């Protein structure tokens, strides 16, 4: 059967998906957060993580240009769920995560990268310039699913400069596996300094969003004695 003969569906009505880009055509700086909400995060860790997310929004809102440029999407895993679709910081509402089940990290990475690819296609469609996206993984365990394929995707993306992938391990995380997924040195979160982590992330996103798409921005080292991370 000829492919052209297949019945085709057509969308109803006008497409207003471009309104957000017409309203705000600033270059975008997408950031995907892959957040572990497996059962082991239960208690103080998940509370601190939620507080950290609220801080993230507040810090970004303090910078009018970053608020228009930084776009946040959140995929939580345990199970994998898109908690927040891409939104500029202005419109982002920090979600409230609760600890649930396992740690399907491989699936979560795949889902996050898929979201990113869709978003980039939308940017191209609407003529919106964008900065190199960030993918930020935070976990406290080791993957309970197949992560090899995801690791390969991350590697390809990093090498093709399609995005920058950062991994942060909370107490109890398997840093060996993180090291095999991320090309960059995974960082270990000191205690439960989620708030400092998100402050650093928003500061970094702010300097990236004020830079020029396609240029490298020097980031402050979070692994100093005062910082939130150790290697």
């Amino acid at each position, binding site marked *: 059967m000829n492919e052209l003969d297949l019945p085709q569906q057509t969308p109803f009505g006008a497409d207003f998906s471009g309104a957000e*880009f017409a309203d705000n055509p600033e270059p975008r700086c997408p950031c995907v957060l892959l957040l572990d909400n497996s059962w082991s995060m239960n208690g103080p860790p998940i509370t601190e993580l939620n507080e950290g997310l609220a801080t993230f929004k507040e810090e970004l809102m303090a910078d009018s240009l970053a608020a228009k440029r930084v776009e946040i999407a959140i995929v939580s895993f345990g199970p994998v769920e898109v908690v927040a679709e891409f939104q500029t910081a202005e419109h982002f*509402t920090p979600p*409230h995560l609760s600890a649930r089940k396992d740690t399907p990290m491989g699936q979560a990475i795949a889902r996050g990268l898929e979201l990113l690819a869709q978003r980039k296609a939308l940017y191209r469609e609407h003529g919106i*310039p964008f900065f190199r996206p960030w993918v930020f993984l935070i976990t406290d365990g080791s993957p309970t699913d197949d992560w090899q394929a995801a690791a390969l995707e991350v590697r390809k993306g990093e090498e093709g400069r399609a995005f920058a992938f950062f991994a942060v391990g909370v107490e109890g995380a398997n840093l060996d596996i993180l090291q095999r997924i991320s090309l960059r040195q995974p960082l270990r979160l000191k205690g439960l300094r989620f708030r400092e982590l998100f402050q650093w992330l928003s500061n970094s996103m702010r300097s990236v969003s004020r830079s020029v798409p396609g240029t490298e921005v020097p980031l402050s080292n979070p692994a100093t004695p005062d910082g939130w991370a150790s290697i």
Partner: protein
Amino acid sequence: MTKLYNGAGHPLELGSSLGRGGEGAVHEIAGRPGFVAKVYHQPLGADKALKLDSMARQAHPSLLEIAAWPVDVLRLQPGGPTQGFVMPRVNGYREIHSLYGPAHRKQAFPQADWSFLVHAARNLASAFEAIHARGHVIGDVNPGNVVVSSQALVKLIDCDSFQISAGGRLFPCDVGVPQFTAPELQGQSFHGLRRSPDHDAFGLALLCFHLLFMGRHPFAGRYQGKGDMPIERAIRECRFAFGRHALTRQMEPPPHTLPFAVLPATIIDLFERAFAPPKLAQGRPSARDWRRALDQFGAELRGCARNGAHKYPRALPECPWCALEQASGAVFFVLLERFSADDPGIGPGSFDLESVWNPIQAIAPPPDEAMPTPAPGAGVTPTPLPNGLRRIQRVNALKAVAIGGAALAATLVRGRLVWLWLPLAAVAWSLLRDDAVRREMQRRRLALFAARQEWVELRAAWSQQATGHAFAARLQALTALRDRHRALAAELQRDARRIETDQRQIQLRAFLESHFIDAAQIPGILITDQMALASYGIETAADITAEALKTVPGFGHRLGHQRAAALLGWRQALEQRFRYDPRQGADPAALARLHRQYAQERARIERELLAGPNELTKLKAELLKQRAQLNIALMHQAMREAQAQADLRVFPPGLDALWRRRRG
């Protein structure tokens, strides 16, 4: 408090810090409110120090007006190394991106329509012109270095990076932003690069485009080829996405952008020349070219009949913004109609309620006047009966006497038969008398009746048309309008506040809707409970209410009590954690609608109030005219009534006449 020394060695005291950046901090200067000090973290090298020194010596009023131009240098010790400089303070200006981006503009510059943007572009061009006229070049043109005021005045900041020519020496601009750099300079190092006003002209055209095209970059389009097309590459390859050669360069304007063709030919030509390959362009349009063309363009704009916030070139048959907003679902301009965000005040300059009310009050209400009872006037003579009738009257009298006499005689003779004689006499009288006189009397009685009827009608007309009711009613309506006008501002504010409260509700609802029951760990709620809830449409915290839970089997009764309480408690806990974000603000479109609605109402009230004095004067004149007419009618009526009465008097007074007189 830090003490520094200016170029002449005089001490300056720094005030509080206004901002801090990578290379230095900006401070207030004690006793010099119009100026600020930029102090570098590190002492400056000899070249930079010399540059600042020559800039300060070249400070010219025309530059200080449009730029944060250095006017003096600062040193830690007199004669020591330069550590900073003094510049005019730029206060109340916002970065230009908050003007050209529609979302941000609706908050930061709610009153700005397209003519405001055109005017800002015009002022931007004139700032460039002033810099170029003094022989300098901006070099690092980018949105971060341009700020705009609420009057569309433009200032350039970060002037210490400008390329300065002083006394035959050139101090280059060592920085730049590739997205705003001319194609011929793409890929070159900015360090020591010698730039010309023509390079600035490229950046100026880019910024003008951002202002006119709702923040779009002219080189950010839909690339038809494979892979990404970063802006720097698009600039280098002259892929102007809106221009006439866009398609041949595999570019297409992004969706939902203003069509390039709505611009007048002069402006299209300027953009085409500014973005053309440098070899073909033979020099880009200068800042002066832009200023002149934009001046003319601004004068050719007109308002849209359907939406006052839309401005477009007079030459176009219809408003392009209406079409664009309809197609995209975006709102580019908000209509505030003489209202500003800070002052929802109602009295715009041209309408002063008191001065409109005074003439209304000055019109004295017409005096009350009872309906007059005009005297019939002397000389009413009864109309005598015609001769024929008088004779008939006499004959009738004789007949009456004869019949009466006969009846009397009969009674005397046969007294017992009196019951027979009297009816016989009556029958004889009715057979023998002539009715012509009676008919005449009836006619005259009807005339009197008609005259009295006329009086009743005139009285009704008087009470309807000749009293001050209409005037008083109108005055009362106008007073109500005046009071409403006074209350409008408060009501508008109240409604605006309600929109904001709604905003809180909307945010709270969105927050609650993002919390799913099946994703939460609620003690005592099992998966089966979740399924039961879900089948009754209760899926998120927003759906949980006591009423809704009652309808779900297993939650309404005693056993379900605990589970229902757990759910309600969970929702309550979430509500407590919810944080309202006032920065999201109320929906500017909803606010604009509200303002428009109030503006319309206010305009209607003002129209009526303005028409008030005229209306009242007319009502009063009309009333006096009616009274005069009714007065004349009443006099005529009185005469007619008097005449009719007199006419009736020619008849001998009968029993009915006696009765009538008593009543009258």
